């Protein structure tokens, strides 16, 4: 008998040309510590490559780190792409420097949460563990 506990799968992705990955690596470790299976897309991803990875890896959550300020273009595009691929069951969370107004707008468009700088890793883990 080879049934096993299902661990939630999370894809963490860096979209755009920015290479700062300190934060995303900390989130990865925190999630691993809470039993998640964390898949990392690597740097320099596009909306399409992230969506493809999310589909191929059959993830439950998708966390995108957008540090170039273009979140209001990239996140809606990503949500739309996921919709087209019938992947709306995936919970999308966004990390970056996102003003409150933009956070509200993104949540209305379908993002589950936005996490700005200074967010504790624990709170992100708690959110995904709910």
């Amino acid at each position, binding site marked *: 008998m080879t049934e096993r506990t299902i661990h939630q799968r999370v894809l963490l992705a860096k979209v755009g040309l920015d290479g700062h990955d300190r934060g995303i690596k900390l989130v990865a470790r925190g999630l691993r510590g809470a039993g998640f299976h964390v898949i990392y897309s690597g740097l320099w991803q596009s909306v399409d490559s992230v969506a493809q990875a999310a589909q*191929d*890896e*059959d993830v439950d959550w998708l966390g995108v780190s957008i540090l170039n300020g273009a979140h209001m273009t990239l996140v809606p595009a990503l949500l739309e792409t996921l919709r087209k691929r019938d992947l709306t069951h995936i919970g999308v969370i966004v990390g970056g420097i996102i003003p409150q107004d933009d956070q509200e707008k993104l949540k209305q468009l379908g993002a589950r949460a936005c996490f700005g700088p200074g967010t504790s890793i624990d709170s992100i883990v708690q959110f995904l563990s709910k």
Partner: protein
Amino acid sequence: MPLDVHRDDIPNLVQRMRRRDRSALSRLLTLASSGQQREALTAELPTQLKSTPPVIALTGGGGVGKSSLLGSLTTHFAERGERVGVLACDPESPVTGGALLGDRCRIASTATSDRVFVRSLSTVSGQQGVAQNIDLMLDVMKAFGFDRIFVETVGAGQGDVAIRQVADVVVLILQPQTGDELQWEKAGILEVADLVVVNKADLPGAAQTVADVKPQLGAADGQGVSVITTSVAKGEGIDGLCRAIERLAVSPRK
């Protein structure tokens, strides 16, 4: 994870998957990996396939460059028009069961994404180092219609031996040794390897490592096992490695 009839309807998924529906493949791999509904899945999968793609396992210790090498290999075969499937394994934390699955970022690329499918999975620690239910996952992948399937193992030593059961070709990857310990001597891995690759051949110690490993090979059954050098950084030896893999896939040792 919410129970979604559509997403767990195995007959429907298998039908779609046989028609090269990648999202169905992805979903079936999850079901296969969990071991749930193993019988139902096995029942739906075809018992005979027109052609079975070779399963090539890449094994070796941490840091030898398995993922980078796999990135080069998959690109090579994809550029020749092949459909390539990859299962990339990383160890699970024995304490929390969580895992960091980072091989994908060196294997998957935008240039080849329509041809190359990468699935990351974890290996339960303390076990044989092979992901559970990998045999079932491979059955699913074979039914999808890949031309070639790669499995990247964790390199836990004992698990590398277990991979022999599911792979047609086992490739052991080494890197130039800087210390005296010949780390790959343990756990009988040399006996199961069909091919040995010394990667990062541009680094010092490569020639010595080749010289050290050659006498250890072929000791078990007398069949010659080749040693190839590669350097992903310099893009050297990849063609030779691909040719060797192809030869072995056609006439495997086992």
